[in-house]
């Protein structure tokens, strides 16, 4: 047996252990968060078992509930991918919410205003405009960071507020459907609608786009030079610069791609689900997607299960509220706790005595002060 092959046999079982320990932390984080959630439910004088059974049934109890969970999984996956892609370049894109809005805004305009186009032109066009809208909104903080050193966290948050107000203005004024009782845009043309996957249910082809996007992002990050540069800048911008890569160009590029994914998430909601854009288009996907990306450790393949879990929490919350009289905000608390436990995985490791592997290092660092 050569030294090389011995190494192989030693490493093969290690890969399994690696997977188990990699999964252990997020699973235990969710478990611990739910346990603390149970304490909150108990403190609010409600029945824990009834509440969590409601949560479970609401998420998976019937074909209808399961497809609804998948409907929510769709934007979560795309938005989670957007945050993860930013993370890989060392950027913290909190602006997914705003990019989501801008994507929805741009796509709905093309989808209702362009008339008489065939499906194979109109639908891709609407999707593309949505992605472009998000990309444009993401490019602004990327550019400000790259050229002026302004921290993307503040700028993306500010752009969230600005996007919400812009959508509010446009939907209530130039894009308003005068016939509607609630302020919203006109309905989109059938030629721009994403087809339904299981007709009586609301599940639409956006899910397929999200799944394709997972593979595209994986391919981009790990199989192309572009992705290699993005990851190098994220891991160590000084080293990247030393190796001749343009840090500023990669910052802008990563924010544009991240924004495009977020815009696509908003686009899917408009073209597949709402078929119009209401002024009250509150999504909350932006902040949830941060949690999803963290849970997935910013790996594209981890995004789908994390997004599914989050969608299940969100979808099940309604029935939980109905059954146990517990406010759906409980889900927010559980979610925040999961982030805390995953971000500070030392807590979980300490609680359950999981040892850190020696070669494990921090892959991504965000906190570099304000714009240095």
């Amino acid at each position, binding site marked *: 047996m050569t030294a090389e092959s011995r190494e192989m046999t030693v490493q093969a079982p290690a890969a399994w252990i690696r997977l188990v320990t990699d999964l252990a932390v997020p699973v235990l984080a969710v478990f611990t968060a739910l346990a603390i959630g149970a304490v909150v439910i108990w403190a609010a004088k409600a029945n824990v078992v009834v509440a969590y059974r409601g949560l479970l049934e609401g998420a998976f109890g019937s074909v209808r509930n399961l497809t609804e969970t998948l409907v929510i999984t769709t934007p979560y996956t795309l938005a989670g991918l957007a945050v993860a892609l930013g993370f890989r370049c060392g950027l913290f894109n909190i602006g997914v919410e705003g990019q989501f809005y801008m994507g929805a805004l741009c796509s709905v305009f093309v989808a209702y205003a362009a008339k008489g186009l065939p499906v194979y032109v109109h639908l891709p066009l609407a999707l593309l405009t949505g992605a472009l809208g998000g990309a444009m909104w993401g490019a602004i903080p990327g550019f400000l960071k790259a050229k002026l050193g302004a921290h993307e966290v503040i700028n993306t948050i500010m752009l969230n507020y600005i996007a919400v107000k812009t959508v509010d203005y446009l939907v209530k004024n130039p894009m308003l459907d005068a016939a509607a009782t609630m302020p919203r845009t006109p309905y989109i043309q059938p030629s721009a609608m994403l087809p339904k996957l299981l007709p009586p249910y609301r599940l639409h082809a956006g899910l397929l786009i999200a799944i394709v996007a997972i593979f595209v992002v994986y391919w981009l990050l790990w199989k192309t030079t572009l992705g290699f540069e993005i990851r190098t800048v994220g891991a160590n911008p000084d080293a990247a610069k030393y190796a001749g890569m343009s840090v500023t160009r990669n910052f802008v590029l990563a924010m544009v791609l991240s924004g495009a994914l977020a815009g696509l998430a908003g686009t899917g909601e408009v073209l597949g689900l709402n078929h119009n854009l209401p002024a009250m288009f509150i999504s909350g996907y932006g*902040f949830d997607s941060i949690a999803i990306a963290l849970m997935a450790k910013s790996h594209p393949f981890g995004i789908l299960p994390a997004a599914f879990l989050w969608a299940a929490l969100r979808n099940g919350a309604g029935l939980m509220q109905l059954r146990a009289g517990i406010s759906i905000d409980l889900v927010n608390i559980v979610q925040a706790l999961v982030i805390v436990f995953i971000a500070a995985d030392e807590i979980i490791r300490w609680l359950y005595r999981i040892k850190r592997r020696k070669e494990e290092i921090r892959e991504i660092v965000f906190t570099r002060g304000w714009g240095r």
Partner: protein
Amino acid sequence: MTETTKARFSRLRALAVVFIVIGLLMIVIARLRIDAAQVSILGFEKFGRQPVPSQLTVTVCGALCALTGLAALALSNARAAGASLAFSLLLVLLGLLTALAQGASIDLVGMLASSLRMSTPIALGAMAGIMCERSGVVNIGIEGMMLAAAAFGFGANLFFGNIWIGVLVAILVGGLMAALHAVLSIRFKTDQIISGTAINILAVGASGFLRRAYLVKAYFVGQTLPLIKIPLLSEIPVLGSVFFRSQPIVYTMLFLLPLLHVVLFYTPWGLRTRAVGEHPRAADTVGVNVFKTRYINVIIGGCIAGLAGAWFSLETVGSFEDVMTGGKGFIALAAMIFGNWNPIGAFLGALLFGFADALQIKLQILNVPLPYQFLGMAPYIVTMIVVAGLIGRATPPAAEGVPYEK
């Protein structure tokens, strides 16, 4: 000339050119868009209302603004140039107010007073940020600390029937949230941006839960902290109604401001704090307890953020609404950067944002032909411009965001 002072100077120069252009634009706009017969009434509270010709006033303001801009270009001293530019900014604001008040009246003293009021949570938040960041901990969770404090402070007000206990609880909750941030980022060495985000999300969840589970069931109270007129001082013209006819949290902010300045720059504690934020290893070597210093600073900062939260629910509105802090915690961070991590500078930044806020409210009342959504964007756009325009000038504490390993 070193690289940084050069960069600083060219930034000032660029700003001066911007002001010269704005000044010239004001003159042109006054000529073209303002009717020569139009009169703006500028109110000075009880000293009466002074009608001024709109066109002439805007023209004069514009000309003076261009002149001060030119002066800033000519001055070789960076500090003097900066002061000159501050003057240009004031002239632009005065011209803007005059132009907007044509055919109507605008109370300048009232505007100042409401700017101060609106800037209070921002200034407090910025002070909280300074406490944390001077000791080397980045805190983007101020928004969440404020929000949780606003909700729980109001809850305590309902529960105990005493608004002062409400304020106290708000301060404590702010401190508690900060303690969580401190433990995560100091003990567990979590990435501080992620930890701050977790605090923000937790605050949205916890405050929303509290509101729907308990607060909505209680009847609407609407009680706010009392307006306190300080005898004699409140009779001083202008200053009296801007500073000495306010509510308790505004006073506290005005008191904390010089206090924090003195503590940071003239006491051993402040020196230790700054040392820990700049070079923790060196501070440790000479016997400063890095962890303890950071814990205490972050938690006190959180208490200040909690007070800012009380401003929303207990001093201004008298109830709690979901996400009522509306991004003020993030704007506070921009004010902190604007002030270069100095309390007084941060306060001036906060005043600028407070003014933007007061102005957009005033404009909505004046029925200016601009959609309210665009007016509402003003504070956010100002924040972006400030962060983008001034960050190159700002020098954050060197050890910021880096967990200390003993």
